[in-house]
């Protein structure tokens, strides 16, 4: 059983769900060892499982196919509940360094990202394709936050005036650059198989990186998001 989730946040799908999956799998493994031990007339501690075969550690000639061991077992259900309340010293720290190259059109206020590199310490990467996609997706969300997404409230009537998908202005393919992802891997002893978070870190880094790149290009510091054409044109033409 995975810990109760209060919502999709905290970059903790792997950190919370992972340990429960591992513990449940270990529970099933224990059940298999007990079955094999009785079939091979030995103790569960003496059993080893490798490459689909169950055998006695000291005498590997005594073996059975895993399928044979479980053939009569029916359904094996692994059960586990893990504790989400990590002690404070177990708080995983993840690090990232982002690099952006931008072109700023000082006439139109348009900013084009010409190159983007995201380096992340997410511990050991469990699945490179999905982890890279998480980073790319996070960067694109950061781009939306940097350039166009904003909840706009009419100040006279205190009414939101852009509460729809059209005016929310999430980025499109045209705003999404090719993101080069670099993982600086290490082993986190508290993480699942040494892994750490990947979900949110790319968003936080992206916004600041883009603002710094615009500063580098224009000499102007932007301290308010999103950095829309009106703000850029006003700043660079002063």
């Amino acid at each position, binding site marked *: 059983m995975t810990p109760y989730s209060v919502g999709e946040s905290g970059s903790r799908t792997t950190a919370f769900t992972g340990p429960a999956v591992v513990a449940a799998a270990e529970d099933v493994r224990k059940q298999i060892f007990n079955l094999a031990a009785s079939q091979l007339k030995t103790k569960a501690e003496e059993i080893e499982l490798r490459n689909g075969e169950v055998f006695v550690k000291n005498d590997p000639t005594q073996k059975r196919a895993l399928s044979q061991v479980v053939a009569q077992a029916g359904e094996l259900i692994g059960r586990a509940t893990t504790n989400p309340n990590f002690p404070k010293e177990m708080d995983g720290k993840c690090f990232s360094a982002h690099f952006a190259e931008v072109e700023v059109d000082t*006439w139109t206020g348009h900013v084009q990202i010409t190159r983007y590199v995201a380096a992340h310490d997410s511990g050991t990467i469990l699945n490179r394709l999905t982890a890279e996609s998480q980073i790319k997706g996070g960067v694109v969300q950061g781009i939306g936050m940097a350039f166009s997404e904003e909840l*706009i409230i*009419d100040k006279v009537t205190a009414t939101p005036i852009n509460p729809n998908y059209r005016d929310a202005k999430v980025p499109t393919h045209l705003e999404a650059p090719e993101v080069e992802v670099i993982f600086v891997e290490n082993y986190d002893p508290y993480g699942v198989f040494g892994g750490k978070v990947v979900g949110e870190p790319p968003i936080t880094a992206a916004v600041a990186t883009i603002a710094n790149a615009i500063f580098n290009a224009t000499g102007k510091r932007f301290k308010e998001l999103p950095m*829309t054409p*009106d703000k850029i*044109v006003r700043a660079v033409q002063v």
Partner: protein
Amino acid sequence: MKSFENIDVKSVKEAVNLLQKFQQQKKTAAVVGGGSEYLQLMKDHVVEPDYLINLKTIPGLDYIKEERGAFRIGALTKLADIEMHPTIQEKLLILSSAAGEAASPQIRNAGTIAGNLCQRPFCWYFRSANFTCLRKGGQVCYTVTGDSRFHAILGAGPSYIVHPSDTAPALVALGAQIKIAGPAGEKTIPLEKFFLLPSVDYKRENILTAGEIVTEIIVPAPKSGSKGFYHKVRERLAWDHAIVAVATVVESSAGVVSNAHVVMGGVAPIPWRAAKAEEFLRGKKLDEASARQAGEIALEGAKPLKDNSYKVKIAQDLIQRGLLASV
């Protein structure tokens, strides 16, 4: 959404007759082509018609023809087909690019040229069910005290919408005409005269009256040696309306302008023709100084609201960019 009845019609005449009939019965009815715009208005509760008259079932209104020195574009021609048409790309590049800058690929594959010209405003007060603004029969234009970052700087008042069409500025710059069918028969007028300022009527954006339907756009082939460009500035590169758009069509020889058309989108309630700038450019050698001056003249008389003065400079710069690209 309020329920409605859809009627597939087979001819323009049938559509015109139905519009008249429903008007006499005090029922509300509207024509739809691609539907990408009108269905959104219905979902947003801006309009609640009793009947939708589906024009897509009329045969022969979807075409691009080149004949006798002009292009004829049927009202139901999709924006994507105009954008991708090889001859349009070759001879009317400005129209192909303006069509290609509109909305998103999905909308361009459904939306028609007539629908693009007849769009309602995308002002967030007009589109919100929370505001009964002047244009929807209310007492005030909320833009005046509200958030006016995307609103008009020219030709506005008492309503401050901007005309949302991308193809309209390009077509006006090309000197296009629009054909309208109605109870009294057909008429063809310059597209420029199709749009209405809010000072004339703040409840509608064009001259169409009950029973009238756009059937064709006629674009004269540009003179050889003329160049047209469409530049659009927006927050997002797709599915976003213009903050400022500029259509320029310039005839010149050896850098000297014989005729120039400068039309802006996103700055006024109608495609805004910069007639004084056009006059200024006639006979001028086009260089950085004269192009900049044309931009300044075009924005003379601009009256920005509290949030949109940035549009003035962007418009001036875009005009300069468009003109300089032409020589």
